[in-house]
């Protein structure tokens, strides 16, 4: 039995616009974080090219270095470095959300989950820097 037409009422459906990620600061930072993967991939490629140049002898390596001195590439690499650092920082800060460690029944605070990541990063950077600079 029904009153009136008995049809289901028509709901209003709102679809997010393609620019939804500009609507909120946190949405934007999220998109930037995801976008930083592109620069990660770029750095991997550059590193692979660098290794190949190394393997091909000092001349090939000098040519490679000359390419890198191109002002456009310097700008690109600088921007990429910023994104890669952003990527690492956001990744480390996210670690505590996914990792729950309990010691003596109490949850270890987020800070102590994130910190070892930074320490490892710093340690690895020191080792690499030493290897590169002593040559």
């Amino acid at each position, binding site marked *: 039995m029904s009153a009136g037409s008995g049809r289901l009422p028509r709901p*209003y459906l709102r679809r997010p616009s393609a620019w939804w990620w500009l609507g909120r600061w946190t*949405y934007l930072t999220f998109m930037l974080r995801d976008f930083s993967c592109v620069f990660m991939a770029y750095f991997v490629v550059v590193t692979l090219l660098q290794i190949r140049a190394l393997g091909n002898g000092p001349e090939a390596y000098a040519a490679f270095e000359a390419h890198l001195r191109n002002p456009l590439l310097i700008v690109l690499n600088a921007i990429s470095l910023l994104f890669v650092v952003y990527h690492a920082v956001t990744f480390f800060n996210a670690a505590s959300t*996914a990792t729950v460690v309990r010691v003596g029944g109490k949850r270890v605070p987020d800070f102590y989950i994130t910190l070892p990541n930074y320490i490892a990063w710093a340690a690895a950077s020191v080792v690499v820097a030493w290897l590169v600079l002593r040559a």
Partner: protein
Amino acid sequence: MAETIAVEVARYSPERGSEPIYQRYEVPLRKDWVVLDALNYIKDRVDGSLSFRWSCRMGICGSCGMTVNGVEKLTCETFLWEYAPGPVRVAPLRNFPVLRDLVIDMTDFMDKLAKVRPWIIRQDEKALSEGEYLQTPDQLETYKQFSMCINCMLCYAACPVYGLDPTFMGPAAIALAQRYNMDSRDQGASQRTDILSQHDGIWDCTFVEECSRACPKGVDPAAAIQQYKLTATTEWFKSLLMPWRGR
């Protein structure tokens, strides 16, 4: 403090129009008033046709979630004076179909809650005569946070993935599944794996974390999802490397 504040409320009725319009009302600005008080003032004294859900007005029933100046909030705990001099824009929660004015369609949410089998699943039941399942305060702590969800749906309104793809299981449903998975009395985690690990389960989540920022009860559903991603992956590897392990 000024005497009044302007409140712009989204109005929609399927009989009247195809699009919502905003209607502006002047409402007294009192220090103790929350947005819900303003809406009730409008309904009682200005325009009785304004429809919205509310009940407890103390932030525990989860009925009154709406979008206030672009942000999802419980209107019973959102104070008007914070928006002075105004205007305050009140709209229905994002990412849900609007049925009427500030009322949204919750059926998808309700379906998803039920899908994760949110009850204690046991292989071996204990008789009541044997007393309670022992659970230390520490064991209670492990899932307690996820049990605080009031089903207000602010997390779904905040989640861009759900907005773009409504088949996504969503924060509250996954957090509810985790609430049971991590309850020491539950033995049913394996029965929830399939529903959680499918494509529109946890893997649709890209860790925007807006759900946890929106949550008025500190449930942190993003944590529930990311933690389960770890669990699901570990379990998958285990089943790959040690296929003789029973489920």
